């Protein structure tokens, strides 16, 4: 997949089938959103923004998690029902389990992030990228105590939320301009492939559409 280019017309072509070529002009991408945070304070936001930019970096393939608004996605998730422990069984007693038994910490996602972020190196956002990667790897591989949260558990939650924010529908505040979907060629929420599924090896690259797709284009 080529990097996103607003001037380029995306072509939908069926190899060998004439008449299937569809040129669909893509609207110019909106400005990357200036994040406004409901949950994160300024210091927390600085870490989150810097960390997600290492987890899914901007590169020659296109925008990374930061440019895709993933910090905003995570912020909204933590500020809302998910952060408060929606669908999370929250009765004790609390015991450490085996990996097969899953998450057993007493924290809601919001508590987990808030506590762990207290223990993060405040200089992270200013480190050079290689140092940031090293630091993140330490969090990932070790069980450093971050405000009562084992660092590997925090890292796992952060990575999971980053991937979610990169690929979830843009209505949730991430995947800005459908950058995650364009990267891989996922067409999004409007989907009817009855006529295409048995046109084997068809190359499909019509622009994706969000749940919030506007009748005259995408947003």
């Amino acid at each position, binding site marked *: 997949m080529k990097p996103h280019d607003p001037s380029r017309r995306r072509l*939908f072509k069926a190899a060998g089938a*004439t*008449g299937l070529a*569809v040129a669909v002009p893509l609207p110019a991408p909106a400005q990357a959103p200036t994040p406004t945070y409901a949950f994160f304070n300024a210091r927390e936001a600085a870490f989150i923004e810097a960390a997600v930019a290492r987890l899914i970096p901007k590169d020659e393939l296109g925008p990374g998690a930061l440019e895709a608004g993933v910090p905003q996605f995570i912020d909204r998730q933590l500020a809302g029902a998910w952060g408060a422990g929606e669908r999370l069984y929250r009765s004790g007693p609390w015991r450490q389990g085996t990996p097969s038994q899953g998450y057993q910490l007493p924290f809601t996602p919001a508590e987990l992030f808030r506590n762990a972020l207290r223990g993060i190196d405040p200089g992270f956002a200013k480190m050079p990228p290689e140092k940031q990667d090293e630091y993140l790897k330490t969090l990932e591989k070790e069980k450093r105590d971050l405000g009562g949260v084992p660092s590997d558990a925090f890292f796992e939650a952060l990575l999971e939320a980053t991937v979610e924010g990169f690929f979830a529908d843009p209505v949730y505040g991430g995947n800005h301009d459908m950058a995650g979907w364009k990267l891989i060629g996922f067409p999004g929420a409007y989907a009817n492939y009855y006529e295409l599924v048995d046109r084997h090896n068809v190359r499909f690259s019509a622009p994706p559409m969000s749940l919030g797709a506007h*009748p005259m284009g995408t947003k």
Partner: protein
Amino acid sequence: MSGIAAALLLCAGCHGMSGEGRLEAGYPPIAGQPPAYLERQLEAYADGRRESAVMSPLAKRLAAEERAQLAAHFASQKKPGAPVPAGSERGRILATLGDNALRVQACQNCHGPGGTAIPPFTPYLAGLHPDYLRRELLAFRSGARRTDPSGQMSFIAQHLTAEDIAAVAAHYGARLEGDRAGH
């Protein structure tokens, strides 16, 4: 004059050079419809999956390559604006939610937000004339139009009442095409 230019003039006689259509005369806009959709309609007029005393003889005279070229031409034209007849709440609900008792899903699942088409095969509905939409739904219902190989459209048209067909046709006919559509 080349064959294709002559054919284009013939199309333009009713649909206009840019495919803007002549709603009052019952000629639908075809500008900006997905090319694969337009090409299939010409094939269907030629082979009987769609019936029209005007279109069928014309389509039969076209070679496959000409059909593709005409489809590509009109597909690349800008979608026209449309007049604003009165839509109904019933039509809006059918278009965006469907009806559980009738077992009909929302039109927008396949025709896209505001009925603005999902290429390559699903046409836009927004801005087409209500009479045209009604006629075509009735043709899907009677089996006269057989351009949807999934059978979805016939199923839907058979489950809608005549009043509902009129309501949903009025809804999409009422939608303004152009930059402010959907608002």
